[in-house]
């Protein structure tokens, strides 16, 4: 019984993971492209730095808090959306950069 339950849970996790989408957000010209994003809980967001200098992406939203740290030119970092809600993502270096994320 225990084995069946474990297998079922793993299968469900794989299925959920397979359904999760990845959303690309480019950091280019000191702007997040796109500026706004609607995602599902469990989806991932890949932050790509297309500028020739360092960037960052973070949110202080309690349920989805993340900070990718100093991101070098050309680098990519992926984060997972953990909870539903609307939150803002900023670049810690360039606070004029703003991304609004709506997670459903």
């Amino acid at each position: 019984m225990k084995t069946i339950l474990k297998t079922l849970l793993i299968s469900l996790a794989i299925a959920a993971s397979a359904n999760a989408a990845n959303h690309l957000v480019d950091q280019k010209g000191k702007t997040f492209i796109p500026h706004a994003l609607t995602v599902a809980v469990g989806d991932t967001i890949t932050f790509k730095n297309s500028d020739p200098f360092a960037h960052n992406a973070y949110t202080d939203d309690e349920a989805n808090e993340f900070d990718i740290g100093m991101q070098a030119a050309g680098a990519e970092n992926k984060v997972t959306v953990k909870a539903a809600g609307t939150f803002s993502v900023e670049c810690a270096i360039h606070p004029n950069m703003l991304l609004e994320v709506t997670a459903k």
Partner: protein
Amino acid sequence: MLIKLGLSALLLSTAMYATEDMKKWLRPAEVPQPANNKLTPERIELGKLLYFDTRLSSSGKISCATCHHPKQGWTDLIPTSKAVGHEGAVGPRNSPVVLNTAYQNRQFWDGRVRTLEQQALGPIEADVEMNMPLDVLIPKLNKIKGYQKLFAKAYPESKGVITNDYLAKAIASFERTVVSTIAPFDKYAMGEKGALSKSAKKGFELFKGKAHCIDCHDGFNFSDGSFHNIGLNDGDLGGKELGRYLVKRRAAWYGVFKTPTLRDITKSAPYMHDGSVKTLTEATHVCGNGGRYEHNVKNKSTFMVDRKLTKSDISKITSFLKSLEGPDMKLKIPTKFPQ
């Protein structure tokens, strides 16, 4: 209202003559204003009185203007506020200029608040500045009938009852009108080719090119609002100034400070957040040639690399920076205050 804000008709009428690539250097025609504190002549005038009124400090000798004076480039022209703050208290940082703060979305050197309304009350309460607790100041202001009347006119919903919120809004309204005037560079950007010297024109090209100044000092305010550790004396070099890292211990904020405007930069020496740089020549060298130290400063900005600027390069960039100086904005400094 546009005239009240000091916006020149010249700027408005000739902006259309600027080529597309030069338009980004011209000041927007309107100052950003929050929906709950739109500019009115009554609010601006009230804010101006409060800005210059020394009764807002516990000693009765210090006003906002003491450290941010219009005749001193909207700063105090000393490295830090030694002997200017309350009873000679020493401020830890160079007094930031008020000019064009309306266009910034982070205030103070460490960007700890977003709006001018949030900023306005901080220095009043700070013990090294005006050292006036708001729970003392507000009752004091509410006893001044002249101020009650002016608040009632500026903010009718206040009914003349002064609160922290209305005080902050009034001061912020005045600060929002402190904007740069038309400098020789603006005339050049609008198509007047003779407005800049040959040296300044070459300096502008270096500014955008070899020197990479534009990487941070971008746009009409010559600041993109970004935060950097430029490798002065902070962090690993034994300094105590950790900048934005003190707001929140985020790795990217270790020893970083806000990129200041370069508008009217000739009027506000000494420079940098610690006031340690005396001249524009030195500032250009420090920023353009990799910081003051060769040491491995923790979290030093990747922009701070040696651009191999020659003395001639620095001289030309300095010429260009001087072209960002406009005439002082028209302002009648109050000498009489509400009673």
